[in-house]
């Protein structure tokens, strides 16, 4: 997969975030402060224009610029966390022009590591990690088992979506939702939901690529 696929990914992610903006904000209103969709929509809009201006040549450069822009434009908890995720993924890809599935898996593992290093959340804490961790795990496992691109990407997205849904029954231990204690149970974590959307955009972009 070349740089254009990754640009397509970010473009698709920006589109679905914009579309789901109010939904994500409402999820955040229930257990946070009602700005997650607003934050990410603002961030990805800035990312798109940054990609237009800089037109990075490699997959790694696309993701690194995406991460840096999110850090500069989003704020809140999700800005640094998603920013770190994309930057680490970009750095992991180095300057290869054509990314294969194992390299993509390694990049996603690096993204997860970056999020956990910065935010110190573990699986079960009711955060984006609960979507990202199972997703990367399922993706790497599928690839190791020799799955096709379709199969591996399907596994990635299914695991992310299942992980996001699973946060509904969790009590938040990190982030703003943790202030609610037991009252956080019964609501889907907005960051986990946005992670599932962003990984869904990755699958769509990758499958659309020749």
């Amino acid at each position, binding site marked *: 997969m070349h740089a254009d696929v990754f640009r397509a990914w970010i473009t698709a992610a920006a589109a679905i975030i914009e579309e789901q903006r109010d939904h994500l904000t409402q999820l955040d*209103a229930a257990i946070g402060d009602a700005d997650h969709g*607003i934050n990410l929509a603002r961030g990805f809009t800035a990312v798109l224009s940054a990609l237009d201006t800089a037109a990075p040549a490699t997959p790694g450069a696309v993701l690194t610029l995406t991460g840096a822009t999110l*850090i500069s434009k989003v*704020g*809140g908890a999700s800005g*640094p966390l998603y920013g770190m995720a994309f930057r680490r993924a970009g750095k992991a890809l180095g300057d290869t022009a054509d990314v294969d599935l194992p390299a993509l898996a390694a990049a996603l593992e690096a993204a997860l590591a970056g999020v956990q290093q910065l935010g110190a959340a573990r699986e079960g804490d009711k955060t984006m990690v609960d979507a990202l961790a199972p997703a990367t795990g399922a993706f790497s496992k599928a690839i190791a088992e020799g799955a096709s691109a379709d199969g591996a990407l399907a596994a990635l997205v299914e695991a992310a979506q299942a992980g996001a849904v699973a946060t509904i029954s969790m009590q938040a*231990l990190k982030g703003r939702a943790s202030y609610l204690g037991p*009252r956080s149970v019964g609501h889907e974590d907005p960051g986990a939901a946005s992670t599932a959307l962003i990984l869904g955009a990755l699958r769509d972009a990758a499958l659309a690529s020749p």
Partner: protein
Amino acid sequence: MKKLINSPDTVVTDALAGVAAAHPSLAVDIENKVITRAGGPQAGKVGLISGGGSGHEPLHGGFVGHGMLDAACPGEVFTSPVPDQMLAATKAVNGGAGVLHIVKNYTGDILNFQMAAELAEDEGINVVAVVTNDDVAVLDSLYTAGRRGVGATVFVEKIAGALAEEGAGLDKVAAVAREVNDRSRSFGVALTSCTVPAAGKPTFDLADNEVELGIGIHGEPGRTRGPLAPARDLAAAALDAIGADLPLSGDLLVMVNGMGGTPLLELYVVFNEVQRYLAGRGGRVARSLVGNYITSLEMQGFSVTVCQLTDELTRLWDAPVDTPALRWGR
């Protein structure tokens, strides 16, 4: 949504333009969203910066000036600012003696200030961060992101600012900031919700006979919901929670803070109940603030912050301050 704005996208920058026009003593970089003292950095003086989401005015921009902050960086409404703003502010106020970051304990603020501090260190600026976490409504445990930083932030900015103005070094200024935070506790009560402009609808719903006890300044829900009660009982609920964590005897600095939509008349009613409660437990209100200092947009409600004073803290509290929202002695 009924608001005095032009559009949700421009509310923060439009307000910053208003701040710039209203306060010649401030320099406002509207594009980068940084408010500094007009004078520029003072050589040899420790720089104090703080920042956080907008919607809490006068916090933090209203506290920039002699004897308090050197700079503030406002984020979008209820969203912490970004590292770029904090770095720009840190560079703008660095007089060579280092810069103190006053950070309210929210994951977003912590992470963004952390990144900004790293960037500043890369540029050779000595930065120390002090985190405020005075909100007793949140249990400070492994099961939460920790107590939120609320009203004590005002006390920290005033008192640390006074010490920095006297020429104290970064470590001493950071130490007194931590001391003030350690000696302060807060608790908030909401009568109504508030509406983030870009969201367009209230963050939460409260029935006409309900209050939210332990509300956060971004409308985060609190400990429990309770029935609407007389001011005396609501003040007691707040002070019971504070008193469970901080002895309420001796000389106290007390703030009864409005959430933004509560009339001053009612805040004085609450303050009267607060001082009566404290007097009943051997607490003496030696210094006080009554008004809107750390708000949540148009939310109706109040918070109480209590700080155990020492002679030194009282001296620094009384020191001259000259900011848009807090001014005395000059």
